[in-house]
């Protein structure tokens, strides 16, 4: 990654990654009390209720979808993929930040990751869960999804391995599995802590089962260390591979606006871009609500902002190259594709996305913005919107006007499209609320080690 984006080890003048005054005990108390101590707060209940309501709406939308078929959506010939695929790519992208933080930064020994990696990773899992919905639901006959997997069958048929959609199945499922394992392994010692601190018997048992008999023996710890390093190593390539494969869904096709070699890198960058934006969106309110300012410090926000700025620039470069190549290649289809994006019926979408993803985020150059929490929060939202629009432009606008003019058409999402999309937020936040309520959202173990290190001066 390029320098100004890279979050370097604490140096003079930078905010600390953990406010002073914390001892091993205080850290443990503070974090575990969120789960065991306070119990269910009003604020949590309210948020959870809303999330659950949205989830119910999602169920309605999906049920009706299964009854009727994808015709209830706005898709048509030629726009065979609509919001469903847009959302799929968007959610998958969101996920990436989590893996990046937990895996790559771990390998790079970035201490500042510690306090955010746990829920960043949870976010990954839930985002992938949401993303996974769409490829399934957008199928004409979803109940036959298993035909995309290789398995012995009396038809003597295999999936068609040349199709990127099959690669997707592997990429996404691997990603989900590894992320889950990595996250869970990381949780084990903390679960043990909770098991030991829990008062209610039920809690003891549940946390006990999940802790899988962790006793904190030296053997356990060494195994634990090895396991996390190995999994980190496994997860690292995934950060790059998954969205690369997702981008193949488009680049392998010949549709102007899809068929381009620059997609893999700028999809990955875009993914991390939106991912960090989402972490930011989540971190800021949580930090406030649970008074974690001392653990998720300005240092974290500042670093994340820098990462956003860096990846944002990569994305910008992607857009520029796309446009340049269209004209440089002299290919009539690419040319009219770009012209259509910039001046066609969807021009407004395109320019909004440019504003959201390129123009506005440039404000992150200034330290004042990076240290202004409301500004950061809004920026993170803007980037999320921008990245969603980017996928809309790629998927829908490219299809709306491709090779054969006679069949050109417009795409209008129906209420069912929107219900399905917004519904996935329900799924996401329901899971997320359950997570912050019943699991330690910051890794106690790692924070404790952080305490040790912050005690002695950084060399």
């Amino acid at each position, binding site marked *: 990654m390029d320098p100004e984006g890279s979050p370097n080890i604490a140096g003079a003048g930078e905010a600390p990654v953990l406010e002073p005054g914390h001892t091993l005990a205080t850290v443990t108390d503070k974090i575990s009390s969120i789960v065991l101590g306070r119990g269910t707060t009003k604020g949590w209940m309210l948020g959870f209720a809303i999330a659950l309501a949205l989830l119910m709406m999602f169920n309605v939308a999906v049920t*009706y979808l299964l*009854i*009727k*078929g*994808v*015709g*209830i959506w*706005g*898709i*048509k*010939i*030629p*726009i*065979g*993929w609509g919001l469903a695929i847009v959302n799929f790519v968007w959610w998958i992208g969101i996920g990436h930040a989590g893996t990046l933080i937990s895996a790559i930064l771990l390998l790079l020994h970035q201490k500042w990751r510690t306090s955010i990696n746990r829920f960043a990773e949870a976010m990954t899992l839930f985002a992938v869960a949401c993303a996974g919905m769409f490829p399934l639901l*957008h*199928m*004409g*006959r*979803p*109940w*036959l*999804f298993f*035909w*995309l997997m290789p398995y012995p069958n009396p*038809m003597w*048929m*295999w*999936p*068609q391995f*040349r*199709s*990127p*959609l*099959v690669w997707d*199945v592997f990429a996404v499922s691997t990603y989900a599995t590894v992320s889950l394992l990595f996250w869970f392994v990381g949780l084990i010692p903390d679960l043990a802590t909770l098991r030991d601190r829990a008062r209610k018997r039920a809690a003891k048992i549940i946390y006990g089962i999940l802790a899988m008999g962790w006793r904190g023996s030296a053997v356990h710890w060494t195994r634990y260390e090895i396991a996390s390093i190995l999994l980190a190593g496994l997860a690292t390539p995934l950060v790059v591979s998954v969205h690369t494969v997702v981008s193949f*869904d488009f680049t*392998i*096709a*010949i*549709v102007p606006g899809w068929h381009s070699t620059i997609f893999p890198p700028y999809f990955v960058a875009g993914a991390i871009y939106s991912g960090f934006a989402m972490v930011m969106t989540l971190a800021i309110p949580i930090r406030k609500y649970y008074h974690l300012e001392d653990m998720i410090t300005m240092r974290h926000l500042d670093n994340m902002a820098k990462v956003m700025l860096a990846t944002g620039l990569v994305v910008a470069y992607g857009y520029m190259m796309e446009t340049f190549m269209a004209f440089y290649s002299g290919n*009539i*289809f690419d040319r*009219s594709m770009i012209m259509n994006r910039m001046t066609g019926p969807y021009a407004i979408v395109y320019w909004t996305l440019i504003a959201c993803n390129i123009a506005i985020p440039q404000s992150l150059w200034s330290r004042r913005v990076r240290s202004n929490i409301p500004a950061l929060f809004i920026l993170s939202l803007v980037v999320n919107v921008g990245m969603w629009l980017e996928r809309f432009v790629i998927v829908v606008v490219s*299809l709306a006007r*491709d*090779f*054969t*003019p*006679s*069949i*050109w*058409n*417009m795409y*209008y999402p*129906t*209420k069912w499209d929107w219900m399905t999309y917004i519904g996935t937020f329900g799924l996401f936040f329901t899971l997320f609320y359950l997570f912050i309520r019943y699991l330690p959202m910051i890794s106690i173990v790692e924070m404790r080690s952080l305490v040790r290190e912050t005690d002695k001066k950084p060399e």
Partner: protein
Amino acid sequence: MSDDSNSNHPTNETIDLAAVRAKLAKDGGKRFWQSLDELAETPGYRYKLENEFPENTEKEAAGIDRRGILKLMAASAAMAGLSACTKLPTEKIVPYVRAPEEIIPGKPLFYATSMTQSGLATGLLVESHMGRPTKIEGNPDHPGSLGGTDVFNQASILTLYDPDRSQTVIHEGRIETWAGFLTAIGDMRSHIAPKGAGLRILTETVTSPSLAAQIRAVLKQFPDAKWHQYEPCVRDAAHDGAMMAFGKPVSTVYHLDKADVIVSLDADFLTTGPGHTRYARDFSSRRAIEGPGSKLNRLYVVECTPTSTGSMADHRRAMRASEVEAFTRQLATEFGIASAGAPENSTSSVPPAWLMALVRDLEKHRGSCVVIPGEGQPAIVHALAHAMNASLGNAGKTVTYTEPIEANPVNQMNSLGELVKDMNAGAVEVLVILGGNPVYDAPADFEFGPTLLKANLRVHSGLYYDETAELCHWHVPEAHFLEAWSDARAYDGTVGIVQPLIAPLYQGRSAHELIAALAGEAGKSGHDIVRNYWKAQRPEKDFDAFWQKSLHDGAMAGTALPAIPVSPRTDIGREPSSPALDKDALEIVYRPDPTIGDGRYSNNGWLQETPKTITRLTWDNAALVSINTAQRLKLHHGQYMKLKVAGREVYAGVFADPGHPDNSITLHLGYGRRRAGNVGNGQGFNAYFLRTSSAPWMARGLQLEDSGKKYYFAVQQYHYMMEEDGHPADTESVNAFRRDLIQVATVEEFQKDPNFARHLETESGKKLSLYPGFKSEGYAWGMSIDLNRCIGCNACVVACVSENNIAVVGKDQVMRGRAMQWIRIDTYFRGNLETPEMYFEPLPCMQCENAPCEVVCPVGATTHSIEGLNEMTYNRCVGTRYCSNNCPYKVRRFNFLLYSDFKTPSLYGMRNPNVTVRSRGVMEKCTYCVQRINTAKIRSEEEDRQIRDGEIVTACQSACPAEAIVFGNINDPKSRVSKLKAQSRDYSLLDDLNTKPRTTYLARVRNPNPEIRE
């Protein structure tokens, strides 16, 4: 086109109560009516209907309803069939008790029969599976067809199985029996006996010799009875024109295969009128090109509403229908028809240079040119055309005259007028209406509905319990032509026999049986009547052999009417020409609808969903205006207007139609039905509300009023969409030509550079690929489509729908861009807004050798066969739609919802048993009619031989009246398709994508008059 796009249809016009009372008074309260709206016939009423009727799948998309649940059940059942991992239900298998000889289960049989359109016969071959007619083909042995068909022929099979057809005899709204009806007729006969005063028979045009004989017999029995004929798209102009020119009615037969120069005076002779299917064949035979040397015919068209014929023109001038007369007079005077009235009192917009060039061209081709007048033009135009053809020495060569093919040629408008007069005078005791629907389609000034109620006993026979039926005491379901015996004459007089393929599905009775009953010969079967008639007519000693042969051939040998020598009066056109319409005054023009005709086909879903030629509009008619006029009058596309003519009014959506002349508005007839059936009811608006007997084709004094509402059209192509500022922009056509989708050159250019269509290819170098090319041994199927021949008539589209069990999706789904037709006719424009050149491009699956769809399918549901077919396996498809996204031609169609009708039993019989009926969630597309390929392969293998060239004919190919489509084995250099592909005109679409399509096109070559530079 958002979720509830049809929501803002007007529903609350103020109802003119006075009018309603008047109506009721007229009806004498007899009429059964539902609501004030219905009586007042406000457009709003029609919208309520529209939303009430099911083919509009909008409701599905918007929310769950009862039908939704039903559909769901059907769906699950169907999917149980399609998905591989469900246990199949136990089937029963039921053999005959006594097996009929000719039927071999699993093998189709073909029978010859004839279909009549306004009396004129087209010969057909009908495919029958186990006694169920399933597919219509043209009859090569019939002069009216030569193997070609039109949309109406193709779609008639759906009408046969239409569940909405009337099914029982109905007496005053209650179900009755045929026997009951016969008794009633018996009483009636004794009541009006002996002279039959007050008996009136109203038929449509009758060419059937046997039926005419029957009617005459009845008239003999009852001397005071009268026979009236009427149909809405009357050929009175032709009739009167002939009278004017020759003093007697004659039928005109054109021989376009002999014509080098053709002038059409607002005549759409390729897709409407007598013999159009044959004319299309003859015309296109003169558009065939072997090489730069080939000699093409040249077509001049002056017309109002843009038509197929206009699009084939080498020189087309758009002029208001009312100007054509002036133009004709101008032209006629040039040929020394001195009396053709001084043009100066009414001049046409045609520049003299153009006119003179045309004149010189005609002079040059004396005896090998022809002038064709249009049905929509006044008699004088026809008369002058006759005169011109005479003076150009065409008579007897490119045009011949025969005794009228109609059994009883009359001016039908007058004929109906007399009937109305008599009814008003109370002189009509019994009125027997055989076919037709005058209450719906009679001229508005006749007020036929109310007047009809003055006849004391009203009997109606028709396929549907329609607007007329509901006002009659007796309704007898008419037998469909595939259910009944009859006979009819083709455009040249040849008699074709109508023989049934199936016993009446319901209690249908043919006109023959009804007339027999009327003549007191009840119980005589249609078969006996027709056969006996001909037995009496024919001298042959071995009549049975003759009869068998006629049945087999579908046409009676030697019954074509002989040409008769006639010469036109010399003083034609003395009559003062009708006064010119001033420049900015609006003219209104009525035309039969390109896909549902005069309204008789409006309950036919296939035809409703077929995009109309050039406008690409489905499920609606519209007020077609030129783009200039739209801008001048500040009209937006889809603006919902009130049209007023002489106090009568209708509501219609404005539709910007390129190539339409300014200051003229075309309305298509046939829409706005109240009693068409579940499909046709409430679609579009009823232009008959405006149409009067004095001005059946064009009227003046049209006023427009904005209703402030927007009307949503279901078009399949969005070219020339008016943007909100009313500014037209046809980005589609512009791009299409920029991308070389249409290759076109003039004859000169073609001769200079025979390879004009191939430049793109040569530029992009020989087709390069990293991978070894696809080598197919044995057969390699390919198709060639000749853009120079295609007249855009849509016959292929409907034929494909019929052959491949393609579902009808309804207006709402079409608006959502989900039409299912496997072959579509792309239409592009070139040139100015006023008279653009129009190009048709039929687009089936290209069957690419490097098919982009195949690589992206995750489950291998679309694959490549060794014979180069791009196969689509429905039962493997999981519906990711990736293939469609990746198809550069976008020829794939997706079942977004459950479109196929698994509920209606009558439709089971209609389906092609050799093609899977697709369920929800699977992709489908053109297969080159693989079922026909396989059948032929099996036959040839069993006979241990190669498939012969031309043995496999795809549905689109066999339907095409212009022979524009040729299919065959491209590995065989001697096959027709190989020869065509070897031509220099051959090119493939989007060639530089290197998809290597098996379907290629022959470039269009125009043959303009060098003297005319436009």
